C-alpha cells in the first residue's frame, strides 16, 4: 500500500514529458525506452546516443538520490523466479507490441496514434487483471 502523491507525480510526469519533447524536437526520435534498449542490444555499435540515454536514466535517478536528503523507497515483493518471468514477458511483449509505457503510453497517446490507443488499454487491463488475481483471488498470491 502506498500513499497518493499527486504533486510529485505530476512534477515527475512533466519531467518525463520534457525528456520526450527534447528527444523529439532535438533529435527527431521517440523517447521509448523498450525501443531504445531493443535497438541498443541488437546493434551495440550503432547509435551511441542510445547508450547515452540509458546512462542518463540511471544518472537522473542517482541525482535524485543525492539531492533528496531522504532515502528513496524501493519495495520489490517479487521473488527471483517472478522477476525472471516478469522480465522475460516484458522483454518479449514490448518488442512484439512495439513499445511500452513510454513509447505507447507517453509518446503514442499524446499524438493519438491508433496503435497506442489500442496497446495502452490492453497492457493496463492485463496488468490490472494480474494484480487482481495475485492480490485478491484466495490461494493465488502470498
Amino acid at each position: 500500500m502506498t500513499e497518493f502523491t499527486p504533486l510529485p507525480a505530476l512534477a515527475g510526469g512533466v519531467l518525463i514529458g520534457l525528456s520526450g519533447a527534447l528527444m523529439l524536437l532535438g533529435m527527431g526520435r521517440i523517447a521509448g525506452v523498450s525501443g531504445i534498449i531493443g535497438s541498443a542490444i541488437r546493434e551495440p555499435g550503432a547509435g551511441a546516443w542510445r547508450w547515452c540515454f540509458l546512462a542518463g536514466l540511471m544518472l537522473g535517478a542517482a541525482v535524485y538520490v543525492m539531492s533528496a536528503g531522504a532515502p528513496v523507497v524501493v519495495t520489490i515483493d517479487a521473488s527471483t523466479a517472478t522477476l525472471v518471468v516478469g522480465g522475460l514477458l516484458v522483454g518479449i511483449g514490448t518488442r512484439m507490441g512495439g513499445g511500452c509505457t513510454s513509447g505507447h503510453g507517453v509518446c503514442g497517446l499524446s499524438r493519438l496514434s491508433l496503435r497506442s490507443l489500442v496497446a495502452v488499454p490492453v497492457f493496463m487491463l492485463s496488468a490490472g487483471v494480474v494484480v487482481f488475481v495475485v492480490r485478491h483471488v484466495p490461494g493465488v498470491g502470498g
Partner: protein
Amino acid sequence: MRGNIIALVAGVLFGLGLAVSQMTNPAKVLSFLDVAGAWDPSLAFVMGGAVLVMALSWPLQGRGRCASLVAGESRASLTDVDRPLVFGAALFGIGWGLVGYCPGPAVSALVLAGLEPLVFVLAMVAGMLVHDRLFQAKK
C-alpha cells in the same frame, strides 16, 4: 556528439522524473494497478503530466500537424493495429503486473536497489533477444 549530449540530458530528465514521481518503486506502480485494493492513482498523474507536455510538443515537430512522423516510421506504424500489437501489449502487461516494473523504471532502479532490478533487466533483455531471434523476419 550533439545527439549524444541531447540523449544524455533527455535520459537524465526521464530518470529524474521517474524518481521524483516514485515510479522507480514497484509497490507504487502495483498500488495503481490494484484498483480493487487501496488504490493509489499517482501513476495516472505521471502519465497525465507527461502526455500533456508531449501533446504540446508534437505540433512543434510537425509544422502544426499532429501525429507527424519521425525517422524510420511510416503511416502504418501509427495505424496498423494487428495481432502482434495486441498480443505483445497483453504479454507486457502480465509481466508489468507481476513485478511492477516496466523498462524505464527498471533501468533507473539499477542504481537505487540491490540485485532485484538487475535480475529483472537481464531477463527483459533476454526476452527481447528471444523475440528478435524468433521473429527476425519482421524487422
